[in-house]
């Protein structure tokens, strides 16, 4: 009897151990084995780990970056992969980070070298971090239920709308819709669920993501206005690491010039022409 319960405990302990190892495994990625040769060029990059580019992302922005199982996929993921390969670095993704902590995490240092999450380059954020050169043109979108009678963003005066916490969509709604209550959500997908549930009348987020989400996952919604904010996405890096910023910029320029960028772009946006040149 005693040995029986001991066995049970041993099995459970093994399970817990295996589980915790699996959890650690998913956040640490595959360690690099081949950094030789690249060390000359990357030595002056102040990276958290030698030869590894540690990236933080919200992973909730298809088709830019989202999770497939535990692995991030998407345009931004592919682009960064090529950039990292060009710099002789291995990519390592942190588990999904809350979007509204990304800028502070990059600014504070010690957690990630670079943040990618369809981050709009703007002057407010530039006070905290630096941005690499833009890699995508974007705008804001106003999304409602397909069954609603709203036709434009200004219809929501005094109404309850939503946006992801910390996004330019949130700021836009807060500044431009008089009297509206703007509810913050941790993730855009939570905002979409809230819209579906009727807790908010409209959701404000990036137009390219809205386009994709509405087409693939939310046929019961419609985009009633593209708000021409002409935002541009950029990777956020610490102000203390200008070397990394320059390396990424140089690499991005090279990829745009040699057509690799356009190739990846076409893969995700077959109907569009890349507007970044």
């Amino acid at each position, binding site marked *: 009897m005693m040995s029986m319960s001991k066995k049970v405990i041993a099995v459970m302990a093994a399970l817990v151990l295996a589980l915790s190892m699996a959890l650690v495994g998913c956040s640490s990625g595959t360690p690099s084995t081949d950094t030789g040769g690249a060390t000359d060029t990357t030595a002056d990059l102040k990276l958290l780990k030698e030869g590894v580019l540690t990236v933080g992302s919200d992973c909730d922005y298809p088709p830019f970056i989202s999770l497939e199982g535990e692995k991030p996929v998407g345009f931004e993921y592919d682009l960064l992969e090529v950039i990292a390969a060009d710099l002789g670095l291995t990519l390592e993704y942190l588990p999904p980070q809350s979007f*509204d902590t990304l*800028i*502070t995490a990059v*600014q*504070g*240092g010690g957690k990630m070298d670079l943040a990618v999450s369809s981050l709009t380059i703007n*002057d*407010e*954020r530039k*006070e*905290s971090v630096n941005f690499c050169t833009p890699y995508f*043109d974007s*705008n804001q979108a106003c999304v409602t239920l397909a069954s609603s009678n709203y036709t434009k963003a200004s219809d929501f005066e005094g109404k309850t709308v*939503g946006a992801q*916490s*910390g996004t330019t969509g*949130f*700021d836009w709604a*807060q*500044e*431009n819709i008089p009297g509206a209550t703007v*509810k*913050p*959500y*941790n993730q855009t997908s*939570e905002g979409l*669920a*809230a819209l*579906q*549930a*009727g*807790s*908010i009348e409209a959701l404000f987020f990036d*137009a390219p993501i809205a*386009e994709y989400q509405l087409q693939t996952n939310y046929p019961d919604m419609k985009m009633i206005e*593209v708000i*021409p*904010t*002409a935002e*541009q996405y950029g990777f956020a890096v610490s102000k203390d690491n200008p070397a990394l910023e320059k390396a990424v910029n140089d690499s991005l320029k090279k990829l745009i010039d040699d057509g690799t960028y356009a190739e990846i772009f076409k893969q995700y946006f077959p109907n*569009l022409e890349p*507007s970044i040149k």
Partner: protein
Amino acid sequence: MKHSTAARALRPAVALVAVCFLVLGLFLALPAHDAFALTTDRTTAKSNEDGGKSVIGGDPTRLSWEGTVGADETVSSITLEFPADCRLADDAYVKVQEIIMDDPARPVHDESIVYTEELTPESLTLEFANGLRANNKVIVQVYGFILPAVSGDYAIGVSYVDGTGASHDLGDSPAISAVAITTTQRIVNWLSEQEWVQAWNSVKFLNIFLNPLWIVASIPNLFFGWLRSIGLVLLGFPLAIPVGLGISFLRMSKLRVLRFISSIYVNVIRGTPLFLQIYIAWFGLPLLGIKPPDYALGFLVLAMNSSAYLAEIFRAGIQSIHKGQFEAASSLGMNGAQTMFFVIIPQTIRRVLPTMTSEFILLFKDTSLLAAVGVFEMMNFAKISVNVSGNMTPYVVAAGYYLLVTLPLIRAISVFERKLAASDGRETPSDSKKKGKGDDKDEGSGENTAPQTKRVGLFKTIAPLSAVDAQPSPGITPEQHDSQ
């Protein structure tokens, strides 16, 4: 007929008048529609209230004006006339974006924009070397712009020069509402000029986590969020008590069906995270057509969750009362309900008070989970502040506000426990101290503070019972009164 001839004679006159009106109407309508090569889309200012939503006069903000160039038109110059008494910060600057609207679904920057600017506190004049092209949108932003320090509505006057060199006046754009500077903001501004604050903030950690400016700004801002969090728990917890008590009775019922149903309720709620329950309530119920207001749903979910924990606490408390108490009560001729309400429950309350208090603390902290579904409680206020500022200090202030409630209650728990131990004749303060930290919702927490075996108290309780009529609450003995 005479009448008909008169009408016929009048007909050309009517037609003439109608034509006149039509021409006049066209004349009036056309210019209004086409005369301006530029229209104002919106004029706004970014909120500069730390942690708030308003635009404060006398403090730098970011002014934003958006316009659209008409079809087949160009614009070579735009002038924005600012209201009187506006000022510019030392680091004020202008940012102009021209946006190509050829594809309305995908507006993009026009990188080729070339302009010169002349920024004064009175006006901003922009000259576009290549002109703004037809249908394009233009966004003009003035950073470090200071509206007058008196609350009021301020309109920006807009004029422009079109492609032919003709000047046009668009008149005033929609006004921006500004409020007078708040006391908090005044303190923040004063602090930001102090040398020690600047030195303090030059250390990255202190700046990001303990920024004095954000401590001052967050205290009043989070206060209302704090009240809302307290409100949620003050509505939820009292509701959870009777529900929990009822369920604990069902759990001890002689009927198997009732025991079964209540144990499902308790186990499902205790076996799933509150976070998940909140999600289901928020995203699931509305799909069934149930859309209660946020706060109502908030405290109901909290109450439901807490009632399951309280049910177990009460059940353990009641079952910990010695059998002798029931026997003594029935020997005095009390029926089941009388025994429960006059003998058992009064004793139970004393025993479960510490555990109940820690359940209250847990529930208060759990109100923060409601932030995830957009309920405006303290955590959400803090989150918005953090996003606006890129500074973590509001979270630290929020922690302070939570502690303001929880620390005195934690203290109260140990007082309750000491009293309980004393009245039980068990002077073991070290034991009770250990229990005070029972901050986890584990199954045994109820039983811990309500020991299963009890000997003392039988006679104590019986003594006043003999005088049921004289004393309204026979469960509390004179000795216990002394100790309370």
